[in-house]
């Protein structure tokens, strides 16, 4: 499958990535190769094989419903660019 510049731009937008137009061709080629590999794998007969959600042959352990964390807001917010009244401040998001 050939990936064109338009697809790269769309995917970049969804991923919130800024891509230099000069790099578009490079990404397009790389991604085409990845998809070709996926295409080859797609050809493998997987009839009767259950999808694998995790490569480890184990199941999830559950934890008891107990509060174990304490308030460490100060420590966490020390590295935040901007805070006010305990809130993290970010550029305005409009619904």
């Amino acid at each position, binding site marked *: 499958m050939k990936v064109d510049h338009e697809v790269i731009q*769309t995917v970049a*937008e*969804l991923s*919130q990535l800024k891509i230099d137009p000069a790099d578009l061709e490079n990404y397009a080629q790389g991604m085409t190769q990845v998809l070709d590999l996926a295409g080859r794998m797609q050809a493998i007969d997987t009839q009767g094989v259950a*999808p694998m*959600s*995790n490569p*480890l042959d*184990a*199941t*999830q*352990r*559950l*934890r*008891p*419903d*107990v*509060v*174990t*964390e304490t*308030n*460490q*807001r100060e420590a*966490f*917010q020390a590295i935040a660019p*901007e805070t*006010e*009244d*305990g*809130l*993290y*401040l*970010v*550029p*305005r*998001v*409009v*619904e």
Partner: protein
Amino acid sequence: MTDFADSNWEAVIGLEIHTQLSTRSKIFSGASTQFGAAPNTQACAIDLGFPGVLPVVNQEVYRKAVAFGLGIGATIGLTSVFDRKNYFYPDLPKGYQITQLEAPIVMGGTVDITLEDSSQKTIRVTRAHLEEDAGKSLHEDFHGQTGIDLNRAGTPLLEIVSEPDMSSAEEAVAYARYIHQLVTFLGVSDGDMSQGSLRCDANVSVRPKGSTELGTRTETKNVNSFRFLERAINHEIERQIRVIESGGRVIQETRLYDPDKDETRPMRSKETATDYRYFPEPDLLPVEIDEAYIQQVREQMPELPAAKAARYVSEFELPEADARVLSSERQLASYFEQVVELSGDAKLASNWVRVELLGQLNKDGVEISDAPITPAALGTLIARIREGRISGKIAKTVFEALWSGAASDPDSYIEAEGLVQVSDSGSLEPVIDAIIAANPKQVEQLREGKGKLMGFFVGQVMKETGGKANPQQVNDLISKKLGL
């Protein structure tokens, strides 16, 4: 009611209900879920998506989800898998929400709703899956910036998805109410809608009556009251009919219901369609449960509302409508059952709980958990009526005294206030004689066969004795004296 019911259109409605599970800690971290804490004091490194942290699933979340599944007769996923749903928003610090896509914990199941005209309808549930809630964005008062509170991030949610089986706002509300009743009954959620514990997204489309094709649907998001749900759906149905009838086309989009303006309006959609790029969550292994676990959850489940109502009808011989009221809430049902137990009279208990107790609770805006009269006190009070120790009328006085706090125990209050019903004819006869003597005209009419006048005499005696006379006995005594 809406006017579209008479039009040539019919509506197709499906609901997605997000229920907040009432756990102490979050779904993947040990941070507290308590409501109302200062911003970001309950958001730990896992909730904040710090590098190097790993989620661990809360076992209580599973127990509650399984209980819900059993409550709607669903298939429980013995192996369930978490997936990542990727999107960017500042209140989602990881850049993805952990949810369940391909292998949810609850699959299928049905809900039987009862409509106002007593007709019934079965609504199919597609699935219910576990996921984490996002944080909260505050858009005002931050100098043009947005404030983010991540206390809610990681709060466990059960998203319950219905099939598009509903065809009116009334049905959708009945379904949502049923789900609300079920999750609160099971203790799965506190169901407090004002705190966002139950939020509805409504998928609505319209089509010509009789058509089997589905029209283009819109999704109205985050409706947090039953009243708003009804209004939002009705507005959306009417809007879509207007759009189509004026030659337009309904666009698939996400809309927001604005209760202040009482309208739905489109949320600003991004220019590019969303693509959540789901994939299995690599930080979590599949969760496996077995039949023994499911059986254990089943055994711990309380009797559900529908079963309770049926039992009240068969065991207590209550009318179905009354049984439904009494079984509608867990605390109310438990209150009623205690009163029955203590009073030994289910019918009287039903009347007193539904009429007097619920009436007073309603009037004073008090929740049943805060009712000033305990089930023990009401049960005793009813037992005294039954034994003939006090009349129903006096019982109301005692009830009021208990409610206002003037009395704490019915028996001592009845004793102290001398409210015991007068049943010995020795003290009643002089009163009756005096009333007969004072009303010769009425006596004459009663003798002539005006049976209705008996009520007048009994009333007079009751008035004279301050309601303490036994009405049946007064009736008998008067009949005897007048030779009726």
